[in-house]
């Protein structure tokens, strides 16, 4: 579902292409999909509503960048806004310089408080602190023993009293003990409780008032659903939280609750738990979390990079040539040059309009090294050779080029073949609309046109059937329409300047 968010966004707002501007009307379907994706990632509904409104406000009036699909662009905005709302980061534990600092963990039953208590103890110890863990869960059977086992594993002191009845008194006693010099940080492991349990929530408030912890953290399970807003709000009201720790992110939960909880409490997510072992605690990064919620891996950040780095005009010019079917080795080289600025080739291919499928086909070839080599070969060619490689380059020219680029002659041959393959695709696609481009891509993948190394080889046969006169006429109509549209756009751009 989420991998296809980008694709469905693209198709939902395909009509947008070429219209120049994002408006509320032409984005409606796209925003609906964003809303659905967020709900399926367990972001709470009121938060989703608010979020979508913000995104719409931001996106409306924005120009559609030529280098991106409108869908990609919208995802870019969604991604940036998600990141912004889950930030800014603050990984500091705000420990005091004088006297012992107290960290307090609270949360629902089974959210991961005790384990996180151990993880924080380990982290503090690593940073040269003297932590003490406090077993203040007097509710759950064997909870004290659980923390004692963790303390033993870590070689850290655990403050516990098997006969204790009152967690408030126990926490106070623990802090007193720390003050005598045994520890400089105290981590309180409190019992899990429901936010609707007034009595137990008041008890938390009492601990908070009596021991005045430096930091109070809410421990939240990454699998939490819509209820996250209600529980987080209640804990924040009872305690004034300073931060959130989200656990169990080692699974496949989208973790939309991170956004919900940040939204209702306003406090930063500090750490994430990524496993049951005590070293599985990481600092929180809004960008990673945003990608996770959208379920789109690196794609979103690539959109961002593309918006920054791509030379807009150059891209537009290239697309123009591409559409006309004029594609030379020089263009090929430029494309390689631009893409190498961005990173792995196969990922970058997905940035080029309609080329997402191609990147899938390429798999994970070591494309970067390959690209350097390819550029070197093109550099050793004369302008004539670049314009018309397959016709001009004979064995003697091939040897010369190979020597110049420091490669074997057969590699020159391979490049020319690869180029022919791509040029062929480009020419075919130049006459297609977006949907047909995608379809052609799919057909090529299925036809096994790509060699095992992911190299593109020139196709021997056509992609299937020949075009009928009607189809050709239809394509010409499409081409003409696109040409008219481009003219209109140019005019508009001029007017704007």
């Amino acid at each position: 579902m989420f991998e296809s968010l980008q694709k469905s966004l693209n198709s939902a707002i395909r009509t947008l292409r070429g219209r120049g501007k994002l408006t509320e009307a032409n984005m409606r379907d796209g925003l609906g999909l964003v809303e659905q994706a967020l709900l399926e990632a367990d972001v709470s509904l009121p938060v989703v509503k608010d979020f979508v409104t913000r995104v719409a406000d931001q996106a409306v009036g924005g120009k559609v960048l030529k280098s991106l699909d409108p869908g990609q662009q919208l995802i870019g905005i969604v991604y940036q806004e998600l990141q912004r709302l889950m930030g800014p980061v603050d990984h500091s534990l705000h420990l005091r310089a004088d006297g012992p600092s107290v960290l307090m963990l609270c949360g629902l039953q089974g959210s991961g408080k005790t384990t996180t208590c151990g993880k924080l103890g380990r982290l503090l110890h690593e940073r040269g602190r003297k932590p003490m863990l406090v077993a203040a869960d007097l509710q759950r059977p064997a909870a004290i023993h659980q923390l004692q086992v963790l303390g033993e594993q870590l070689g850290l002191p655990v403050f516990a009293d098997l006969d204790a009845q009152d967690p408030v008194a126990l926490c106070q006693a623990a802090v007193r003990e720390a003050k005598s010099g045994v520890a400089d940080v105290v981590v309180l492991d409190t019992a899990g409780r429901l936010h609707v349990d007034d009595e137990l929530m008041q008890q938390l408030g009492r601990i908070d008032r009596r021991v005045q912890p430096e930091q109070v953290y809410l421990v939240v399970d990454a699998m939490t659903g819509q209820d996250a807003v209600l529980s987080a709000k209640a804990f924040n009201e009872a305690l004034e939280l300073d931060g959130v720790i989200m656990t169990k992110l080692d699974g496949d939960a989208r973790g939309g609750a991170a956004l919900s909880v940040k939204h209702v409490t306003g406090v930063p997510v500090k750490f994430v738990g990524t496993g049951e072992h005590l070293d599985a605690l990481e600092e929180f990064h809004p960008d990673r979390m945003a990608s996770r919620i959208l379920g789109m891996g690196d794609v979103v950040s690539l959109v961002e990079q593309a918006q920054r780095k791509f030379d807009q005009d150059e891209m537009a010019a290239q697309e123009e040539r591409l559409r006309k079917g004029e594609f030379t080795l020089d263009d090929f080289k430029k494309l390689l040059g631009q893409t190498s600025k961005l990173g792995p080739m196969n990922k970058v291919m997905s940035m080029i309009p309609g080329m997402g499928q191609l990147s899938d086909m390429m798999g994970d070839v070591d494309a970067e090294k390959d690209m350097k080599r390819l550029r070197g070969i093109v550099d050793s060619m004369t302008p004539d050779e670049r314009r018309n490689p397959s016709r001009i380059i004979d064995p003697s020219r091939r040897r010369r080029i190979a020597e110049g680029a420091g490669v074997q002659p057969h590699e020159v041959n391979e490049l020319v073949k690869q180029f022919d393959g791509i040029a062929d695709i480009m020419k075919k696609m130049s006459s297609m609309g977006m949907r047909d481009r995608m379809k052609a891509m799919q057909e090529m993948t299925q036809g096994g046109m790509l060699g095992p190394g992911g190299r593109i080889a020139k196709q021997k046969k056509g992609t299937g059937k020949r075009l009928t006169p009607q189809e050709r006429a239809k394509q010409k109509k499409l081409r003409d329409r696109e040409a008219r549209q481009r003219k209109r756009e140019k005019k508009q751009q001029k007017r704007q300047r």
Partner: protein
Amino acid sequence: MGLFDQLKQGLRKTTQLLNTDIRDLFKAEGRLVDDAVLEELFESLVKTDMGVQAARQIVDDVGAQFRARVVSMDELIGVIRAKLKELLAQPADPIRFAASGPTVIMVAGVNGCGKTTSIAKLTKMFRDRGLRVVLGAADTFRAAAVEQLGIWASRLDAQLVKGQPGSDPASVAHRTVAKALDDGFDVAIVDTAGRLQTQQGLMQQLAKIHRVLGKQVDGAPHEVLLVLDATTGQNGISQAKHFTDAVQCTGIVLAKLDGTAKGGVVVAIRQQVGLPVKYVGVGEQADDLALFEPDSFVDALFA
């Protein structure tokens, strides 16, 4: 307080929420059912965690029937209730006992969802019927997991079988059932360590426990219960799918329904995985278990 009352009390908050939401839609006698009404309805359903798909389906049904008509709240809720009942329809589904010999029950689920506590609750239920129960502490991983189950065993007068920390959970499970066979226990319940459904090694370990039990007693395990935390959102679907793939779950215990979480994801699970809910957990004590009855569940939601 009877179980049903407890359940009702647990669901009270949910009911209030759903009812206020929907009542707000119908200030006076009725309202014209249009896009806005349907969207509000969709939202109140999504808030139960039933998921976009299930909520959309219900709203579409209501839309098809009532769009452009002025209807009363009772009518509308009647339709939703019927639809939910249809989705969750199942005969009351308590533990199925072995025809002869010990009934073997395996309990699985993600970390912290409520497995061990649910086992305590089931044990209480069996003990109240005079059945003899042996518990297998096959969570050999989590700190003090054995001690936790041990405390429940002694509180409820059940037998405990345990192994060394870090030892093979399948061997603990095996010894538990062997004990049940040797000493004529009526029920053997095997606790397992929490694990995320994406951890393949751990899921294989779970499958191994399942295989071992099957070899010991014909038809065992007679029940494989997946414990699901009621606060879980859409990940519950993935949990139900993967655990069922690994160990052929026979039903769900929906724990922690005493909060404000609605556990609506079981609706989506029922649709997509077909797994029925058998029991619901409504508190931290051994008494806090109720049989899941879909009709009462839905009625309690809208009562």
